[in-house]
């Protein structure tokens, strides 16, 4: 059997729907596969409901943390930059991995647009911000990561997602309260592909992409397509997976920010750096600083919420 890490034009479909596993797998494959010039690796995956924030984003500013924990929607931070996405089984994740030199986001997006337009009779187009829009609605979110030897471009494709859950999860009350240099998402109205053409399904889309992928890369056969069970590579990806799941990576890697609340009509500014509350400016007599200084912000978040507007 050929090795899982061989280079060349290939398609791999992940059997897992756990966002942490899939992100870890994506990074493992990108870092370890012997990428050959002028070839591409296509990774197809999808996740159980979750919200994925970009590497340098602030999860509190991007999503409703409380809602996520109530509905048991996972929160994850990915290694690539960009904005926040909501994933569920109706949202297809596509990653294209190449050598650093062959990285070309526009080419990838144009390939997708052409393929989907032709097969499903749609009118998708690529915007300057490298998003794919259907008329005025956004249907994908892109992000990339460029390292010395490899680069990957991944994006989501809204096929049949629960848009209400999407909107609800990505709505953040804290957006106005947070000042920071973190990347903030640019929000747009979204649409499912299936809403425009109800014959489009996840299965059809995958089959279409696999076939067209090999054509695009001038391969005569589609045999280099495999399902991959990340469980088998657990030993290799567990470090990444543990990092992705850790509180540290989820919260403490957030760029420094100031969280402002109103308590008894007075503004209180809470400075957070590396996830830890480093300073509180406000009326000293109102709040007991000891409870918060030095604490992990995400740990005392609920207490802070209680103070707000009281």
């Amino acid at each position, binding site marked *: *059997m050929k*090795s*899982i*890490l*061989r280079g060349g034009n290939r398609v791999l479909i992940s059997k897992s729907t756990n966002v942490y596993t899939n992100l870890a797998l994506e990074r493992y494959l990108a870092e*370890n596969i*012997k990428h050959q010039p002028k070839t591409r690796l296509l990774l197809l995956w999808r996740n159980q409901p979750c919200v994925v924030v*970009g*590497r*340098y984003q602030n999860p509190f500013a991007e999503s409703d943390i409380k809602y996520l924990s109530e509905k048991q929607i996972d929160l994850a931070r990915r*290694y*690539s*930059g*960009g*904005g926040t996405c909501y994933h569920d089984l109706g949202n297809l994740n596509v990653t294209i991995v190449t050598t650093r030199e062959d*990285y*070309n*986001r*526009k080419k990838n997006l144009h390939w997708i647009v052409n393929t989907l337009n032709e097969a499903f009779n749609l009118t998708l187009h690529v915007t300057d*911000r*490298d998003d794919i829009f259907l008329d005025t609605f956004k249907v994908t979110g*892109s*992000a*990339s*990561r*460029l*390292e*010395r*030897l490899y680069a990957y471009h991944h994006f989501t494709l809204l096929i049949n997602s629960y848009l209400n859950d999407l909107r609800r999860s990505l709505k953040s009350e804290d957006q106005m309260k947070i000042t920071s*240099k973190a*990347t903030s998402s640019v929000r747009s109205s979204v649409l499912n592909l299936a809403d425009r053409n109800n014959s489009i399904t996840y299965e059809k889309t995958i089959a279409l992409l696999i076939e067209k992928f090999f054509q695009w890369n001038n391969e005569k056969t589609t045999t280099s397509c*495999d*399902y*991959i*069970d990340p469980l*088998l*590579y*657990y*030993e*290799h990806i567990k470090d990444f997976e543990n990092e992705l799941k850790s509180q540290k990576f989820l919260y403490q890697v957030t*760029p420094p920010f100031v969280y402002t609340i109103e308590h008894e009509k007075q503004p209180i500014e809470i400075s957070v750096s590396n996830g830890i509350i480093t300073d509180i400016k406000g009326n000293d007599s109102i709040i007991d600083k000891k409870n918060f200084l030095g604490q992990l912000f995400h740990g005392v978040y609920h207490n802070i919420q209680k103070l707000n507007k009281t």
Partner: protein
Amino acid sequence: MMLGRYAHNNAALRCATFSLRMLQRPSSSFSQTAPFIYTFKKQTNIVPISSLNHSISHFGCRSFSLSSSRLSSVVQFKLADIGEGIQEVEVKEWYTKVGEHVKQFDKICEVQSDKANVTITSRYDGKILKLYYNVGDTAKVGEPLVDIKLEQGNNIPVETKISSVTPEEPVEVEVLNKTPSVNLLATPAVRRMAKELQISLNDVQGTGKDGRILKEDLLNYKSEASSAKAISTPLKSTPISPPPSPITMKQTPTIKTQPPSTTPVADRNEPIKGIRKAMVKTMTQANTVPHFTYSDEYDMTELVKLRQQLKKQSKDIKISYLPFIIKACSQALNNYSILNAHVDAKCENITYKGSHNIGIAMDTKDGLLVPNIKNVQQLSIMQIANELTRLQQLGKVGKLSTTDLTGGTFSLSNIGAIGGTYAVPVLLLPEVAIGALGKIVRRVVPDEDDDENSSSSSSDDDYCSCRVRSIMTVSWSADHRVIDGATMARFSNELKYLLENPLQLLINQ
């Protein structure tokens, strides 16, 4: 290379370009350069070169600059072109700081440009003197990102004069070859050491960054020459289990006065690669699981007769015993579903697998692999036989797919096809049971009458009637953390019953 391009436009650095190219990784594009000798000095406290902050003026500094007057030691490392026509990026994170030493390919910083994160790595070995941006600032492509003070040394002859202050570490020498190997990363010091120890760098596994070969690697290789691993072998984690036959050897010592004169034959060293390497990993893992083995003998006579009958009836049906055994296992597993289960790595959860995906250890073109037949519970014996043939044929040409090789829930090893009777098979994680089928041998067994009376009446144990039967030994190994001996024994008994009474097998399909 990137710096070279910009340097051409920058008169101040033009003189540095030629020599800076020398400092970069040697590659085949430099084949036209004349080899020249220069030294690298490792950073130490005493070596004068690095001591910019030292107020004492060093004799070393003078001669250093003399011999390498063309080399300017501080380099402005510029932000290289990111692609996609991007002119500006935001600096998101620094991985280094002023005063820190970096090696080539170490991470310097992370920049972000509209959804693309780029990791910028260093081109040089040296010390960071200046960071041009803070986190959150906008950096421009083509503009300086950091200043690096390069680490350099003198030519050999001059060096002896300088060492009135002897450096703590030995001075390293490199000769730039015209055709160095492109994929081997190793500092000049390491290369020299390899030469001295007469080790070929191709044989050494690098454990440094990007597979770089370090001094420790050379030392390890030297002391453990036989266990050197291949440099860039992709790791195959597909599960495999070798069926070992225990070999007991008795050596009777004979006393002689002198050994016969012989000439020793050279050893042959070979890095462990491919499937064997994967075996090392999976076997080591499996070894952490407490195994127990349970063996028994099955009377296969009826099955042998059945098979001969089938052969007579249809000359072109080729069916071996294995499909029958596989089907029988599946039937028995219906009653002992715990043997068709997976445990997780920490043995905290047991998953009773619904499908019986029975794996068969095969000696394929690539080595020992265990493809599995999916959903045996739904297949007829003929279908199992066909599937087995398909897998065997694929295995012969090395074309077994991932699907074939994954998802197994229970495994069998037909080592008896080659030979052997008893074995202690090693589990194929995360499965919990595995069987090794020995050879079917013709054996004489005493007649066992159903009524006990006859045996008690014949007090003459020396005389008894006997028959010749076909006996197959089977050895089962199971995960003793979740499977107990009684379960295994009862399963084996049920299987035994099915195989000894093949009709039962056919009725219950």
